Structures are given as structure tokens and as C-alpha cells.
């Protein structure tokens, strides 16, 4: 046991607590950026408003709340074919733990293609280019190169755009249009007005990640906050699809039995282990 005054502490601007009278390890009152979470905020604030408060430490304006609400719905289920959802379903069909399904969705959904890192990179583009179309053209055509290696691999396409797309999909256009309607945002309007120019520079269509990154930038989240929130918001779809496939079982889930072509197969070898297999 250490004396209180010598104990290490956790420094935070987000959270404070008042202990229960009979137990210093239990909280009686919890404050989030000054708001009494269970004694005042609960019942008054929406989930989306509380989520915004957690990241920004101030309540959102009406427009900001509408933007985040729209984004949360747009991202909640990336769809059954999305890579991150497929990661979760692979946990489901094998009867893996539910946490592993979400960990798989996070791991797969964290990358440069449609994942959290794409959001991080596009926010950095926004910070550097703003609404200057010439700056975007240069940034997309001559993307920044990392000076030294990182665990993240280099981008293989312009962040926020779908290298495997043919044209901008209807859901992406619908989400962008909704955000423009509710957000009163210059940046989102600029993205809508300049989408086709940007797509020409990128040589591929705007993706949902591109709209998401722009909304998160409009909400004044920095690239780290935006990456983190995007990862969080995409988990509900992974959860429910994983649960569904868990119930249905692996036999009803693609194994791609005929899809693998081994190009250097040495063929069966008759050897000592043949006996063991029997």
C-alpha cells in the first residue's frame, strides 16, 4: 500500500468522480467534462450528443448533432460484403468468442482500404488542402511519401476514394446529399460540388469513407479522433452479421472450396506418415 500523496494518478480532462461515502473504489457521482452523467445528463442528452461530448468536451450544436446522427446511421452497418463485417462473420461461423468477432472487424476495418486509416489519411489531406481544388489535385496526383517506414503500409489509392469502384454509388451520393442538407457545411457542399473533379484526379469514385472523413473533419475532429470514432461507429453491423452467421453455421457460409488455385503443388507424396493418417 502506498500513501495517497505519493500515488501515481491518471490525468484527464474528460472524466471526474466523487467517491461513494463507504467505498473509495466506487463512484457516487461521475462527471463528463463537468456534466453529471447519471444525475443530470442521462435522460436529457441523446446518445449522439453524449458521444460528441466525450470526444469534444462540449455539447454539439444542433447541426453538429444532426451530422453525427446521420453519420452514425450511415456507418452502423457497412454491409454484409464489407471486409470488416466479413472478418466478424468468420469469427461467427467458427463459434469464436463474440469479442473476437469485434476484434476481427476492428483489425480488418482499420486499414487503408475503406478502414480507419483511410479516414486518418483523408483528414490529413483536408487539413492541408482545405477547399482548394488545385491543392487536392496536387495532393492526389503526388501523394505525400513517408520519410521512414511505419507499421502502416503506404496508401495505394487516394484516401476517401474506391480504387475498385466504377462510379460513385447511390448510397454514397445519398449520404453526401443528406449531410449537405442537415449540416450547413461549406466543406460538404464543396465535396458535393467538386466530387466529379476529385474523382477524375483519383481515377476512381468517391467512397463512403470519403464522405465520412469529410463529416468528421466538419465536426472538427482531428485525424486521430476521426479514425477512432469511425472504427467505433462501424461495429454494430459486424456484431449482428456475426451473430446471424454463428446461428446459421459454417456449412451455409462460403468456404470458396473451388476458389483456391495452388500454383506450385508438389502432388501427393507416398511416405511414412501415410500409416499415421489411418
Amino acid at each position, binding site marked *: 500500500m502506498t500513501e495517497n500523496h505519493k500515488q501515481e*494518478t491518471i490525468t*484527464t480532462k474528460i472524466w471526474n*468522480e466523487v467517491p461513494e461515502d463507504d467505498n473509495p*473504489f466506487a463512484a457516487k457521482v461521475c462527471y463528463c467534462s463537468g456534466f453529471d452523467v447519471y444525475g443530470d445528463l442521462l435522460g436529457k442528452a441523446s446518445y449522439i450528443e453524449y458521444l460528441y461530448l466525450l470526444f469534444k468536451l462540449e455539447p454539439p450544436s444542433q447541426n453538429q448533432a444532426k451530422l453525427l446522427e446521420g453519420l452514425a446511421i450511415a456507418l452502423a452497418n457497412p454491409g454484409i460484403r464489407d471486409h470488416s463485417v466479413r472478418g466478424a462473420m468468420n469469427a461467427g461461423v467458427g463459434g469464436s468468442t463474440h*469479442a473476437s468477432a469485434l*476484434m476481427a472487424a476492428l*483489425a480488418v476495418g482499420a486499414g487503408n482500404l475503406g478502414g480507419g486509416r483511410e479516414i486518418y489519411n483523408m483528414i490529413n489531406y483536408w487539413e492541408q488542402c482545405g477547399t482548394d481544388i488545385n491543392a487536392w489535385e496536387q495532393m492526389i496526383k503526388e501523394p505525400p511519401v513517408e520519410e521512414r517506414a511505419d*507499421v502502416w503500409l503506404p496508401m495505394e489509392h487516394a484516401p476517401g476514394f474506391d480504387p475498385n469502384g466504377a462510379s460513385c454509388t447511390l448510397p454514397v451520393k445519398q449520404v453526401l446529399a443528406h449531410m449537405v442538407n442537415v449540416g450547413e457545411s461549406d466543406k460538404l457542399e464543396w465535396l458535393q460540388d467538386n466530387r466529379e473533379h476529385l474523382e477524375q484526379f483519383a481515377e476512381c469514385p468517391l467512397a463512403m469513407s470519403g464522405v465520412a472523413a469529410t463529416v468528421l473533419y466538419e465536426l472538427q475532429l482531428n485525424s486521430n479522433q476521426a479514425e477512432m470514432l469511425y472504427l467505433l461507429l462501424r461495429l454494430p453491423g459486424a456484431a449482428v452479421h456475426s451473430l446471424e452467421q454463428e446461428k446459421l453455421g459454417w456449412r451455409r457460409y462460403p468456404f470458396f472450396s473451388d476458389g483456391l488455385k495452388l500454383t506450385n*503443388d508438389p502432388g501427393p507424396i507416398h511416405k511414412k506418415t*501415410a500409416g499415421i493418417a489411418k
Partner: protein
Amino acid sequence: MKGPELLKFFEDNWETEMGACFPDEQRIVVRGEDLFDSFDGSSWMEYLLFVVTGKRDKKLANLLESIWVYCTSFTDPRLWNNRVASLAATTRSTAALGVSAGIAVSEATLYGLKPIKGVSDFLLRVQAELDQDIDLDLILEKEMELHRSIYGYGRPITDSDERIPPVINMIKKSGYFGGNYLSLAFEIEGRLQKKYKVNMNIAAVYGALLCDQKFTSIETYYMAVLSFSAGMFGSYIDGLKKPSGTFFPLHNCRINYVGVEESRAWE
């Protein structure tokens, strides 16, 4: 080929040289070799090395395994990646979840996988610049100016790295000492000590050893991803032996709140 055409090409069509299993034929193929035929008596590390690089090198695999034992899996539950496993144990989550999350956390900047991959990349870049007759001091100065630190040099909590002498002994005994990159790593340490008072850490030794063995940065990284896991098992097992919720409990006084002072009402 791009866009939907590219996706169509790959639909139900994954060509690979990496391997496949043929359960009906009771055989498994790995990188063009029959697993049961070629890996009889092989260590797991030798197999991992083969999967990652395609190289069969028992001696190097043994050395890497010894380095893992000495350097990467301390069972101290305070180490940040181990602590994830301890927390998973104290909340009675599973070992697989705790250890896999701990491995993911090992992709850190302060320690673990970023320095390991980073120092390999750094040494390869330095050598390329030295080959162009650029002065080593200038290269290091530029690197420090750009990044304020160099992967493989410096260490949180303590300055020195107790793992280096025994590992160098291991490398000498295995016959892998004396490579160009290992010498370069020490030369760099000398320069950095003099100018910035920064010492080498074990990542530089590991990175340099594998540079000398012609590993790319990403291969060096692959050959370290799982290296921290044994320490996490120790931390997890330890946490499970104790009452749940008791791993470094924190009472309210341990919160150093520095946010807005006043309590405010939600409008």
C-alpha cells in the same frame, strides 16, 4: 485491369504459391513443400521463418528463438502490452482475447514492433546513403531533425538495455557476428552517444542482425509480431490466479482531473 473488372478476375479465383490443405488426400502443402514430408522434426520457429521468407535455416531459426526468449517476453505485468493480458485475466476474459489484444498493442512507438520495423528501414536507408558517400553524422543529424528520435536508439524508463550483451554473445556463438549492418548499428550508437547521449536498444541489434541476413524491413517485422506473446501468457495466468478485479485497482483519488472546473447542467 482495374475496378469491377479486377474484382471479377479474382472472384472465386485466388492463385497462390503459399499453400493449401487437401484433407481428402491427407496432405498439406506449404510454399510448394509437403508439410508432413519436409518438416519432420522441425521447430516451430524454423517453420515460421520458412512461411515468412521461404528460407530454410535451422541455425538462424534457433538464434532468433533464443533472442525471443531473452528479449521479448518478460513476464512483468506492468509492461503495457502485457498489462492488456493481465487486465483480460482480472476481468475473467479469455487468454486468446487478452493475448491477441496484447499483440496488437505491441505495435507501439515506444517499444515493440514500430521500432523493430523502423530500425531495419533506418539501417537500410543509412547504408544506401553511405553508399552515395553521404557523411554519417549528416545522415543522423537529418534523421534527428526530422523525427526527434531514431528507432532502435533510446529506451523509455531506463537509458541502457540489459539485453544487448547476452544477445551479442548469442550472435557470436552462432557465428552471425561481424556483419556490416551490426557494425553500422554500433557505429551509429557511438555517434548518437557522443552528440545526443542516446544508447542503442535491443531492436537495433535484432534489426541489424536480420539486415545482415538480407531480410527486408517487413520480413523483420513479421519475424517479431508474435515474439511478445509468452510474456502475456505469464501475465494472464498470474492475473487469473488472483481474485477478479484486483489487478492494480484504482480508487477515485487516482484521477487527476484537469478539465473544466465547474459542474454544469445539460440544457
